[in-house]
């Protein structure tokens, strides 16, 4: 291998890269928060007594889980300005598309977490005179969250990875910035390798957390 690596241009762009990392984290944080809230709402709807709510939530999950995220992104990219008159906001587009996409996955994780709680727990809590709200909050939710932690951590990693797709609509996150750097400096190897590395390092704490959660799960059976 005769390629001469040269990272000497990178320090000049440390601010640019830092800002790009900020953009990636901002988009990821919004998508995680919105996706999780959507997941809670639709999981509640999916496990509800009412058929209409169950059907609606089921349709949402199927619709957004079964289409590639990039297709959703492009669809919103063209539809939002034409339908609402809001100008072409790349952050908004990516945030909406990926939140809805992530929300569908979170819904299924939260639903299966709730359903994994022993049905006897519902009966026992009701027998003890818990009100439905307190029953869910104090008895079911703590057990469900414990069961779904590994899946939640895993999906969170997926969401962070997903944000790089926003580069395709020129949202200036890490990957898009790598492209800019490589185009201005003619150093694609260094630019893309750096960004791939930065992304991996950013994901490391989450991965370690996931490993610990998985190990904890195995230990507690």
């Amino acid at each position: 291998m005769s390629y001469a690596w040269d990272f000497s241009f990178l320090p000049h762009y440390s601010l640019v890269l830092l800002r790009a990392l900020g953009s990636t984290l901002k988009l990821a944080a919004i998508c995680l928060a919105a996706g999780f809230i959507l997941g809670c709402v639709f999981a509640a709807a999916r496990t509800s007594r009412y058929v209409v709510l169950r059907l609606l939530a089921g349709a949402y999950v199927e619709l957004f889980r079964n289409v590639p995220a990039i297709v959703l992104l492009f669809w919103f990219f063209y539809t939002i300005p034409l339908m609402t008159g809001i100008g072409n906001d790349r952050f908004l587009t990516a945030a909406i598309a990926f939140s809805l996409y992530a929300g569908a996955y979170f819904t299924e994780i939260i639903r299966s977490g709730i359903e994994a709680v022993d049905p006897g727990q519902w009966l026992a809590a009701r027998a003890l005179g818990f009100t439905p709200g307190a029953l869910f909050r104090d008895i079911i939710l703590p057990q469900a969250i414990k069961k779904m932690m590994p899946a939640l951590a895993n999906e969170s990693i997926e969401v962070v990875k997903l944000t790089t797709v926003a580069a395709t609509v020129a949202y200036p996150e890490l990957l898009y910035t790598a492209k800019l750097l490589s185009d201005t400096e003619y150093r694609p190897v260094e630019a893309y390798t750096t960004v791939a590395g930065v992304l991996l390092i950013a994901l490391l704490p989450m991965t370690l957390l996931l490993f610990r959660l998985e190990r904890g799960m195995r230990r507690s059976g």
Partner: protein
Amino acid sequence: MAYEWQFAPVFRYAGLLWQGVLGTLMLTGTALLLALPLGLVLALLRLGKVPVLGRVAVIYIEFFRLSAAIVLLYWFYFAFPVLFDLTLDPFSAALLAIGLQAAAFYAEVFRAGLQSVPPGQWDAARAIGMKRAEALRSIILPQALRNTVPVFLARLVDLIKTSALAATIAYPDVVYAAMRVASQTYRPIETFTVLGAGFFIVIFCLSQASRRLEKRLAVGR
């Protein structure tokens, strides 16, 4: 604001879209051909008795699982050819990025499948005089593969979704075809609606098949 939907211009370009479908199938199919054998080898190494090879397999799997697919695509298309001084067309770059990553995911599928076979099967095979390789081929693998079919389909869905990203390095898949149709018809919303619906139908059927098989296998046990 009322938007007037017009699908007719999009359907005039149906030929182009079908060509894109072929491109997607080509990429997904060849990526699968690369990922399945490599994934099996990685799973066997990970479960095998040689510690060094097991570590290598773990690092490979975790690295590719943690990398964003689109970052890999860009890296293999823009950086890899410069690094090794060769030329790579979009198909080869996409095949490498998507296939090598899918191998990591399939390695985990195979590992779960292999581990789902009771260890007694190994002992029994040895007791009747089978060698390890023979036991693996005719006793363990058939049972392991049967158990992995639903997850295999779920990963295939992910693979199809990932292959949609290859359009970003100008590989002529169905998303790329849609981008061309959108710019030629000035009907991006309709084009991407058709594209999304097409993906939905295929992926929905595959996910349903996966879920059904999972239930049937659970009953058969």
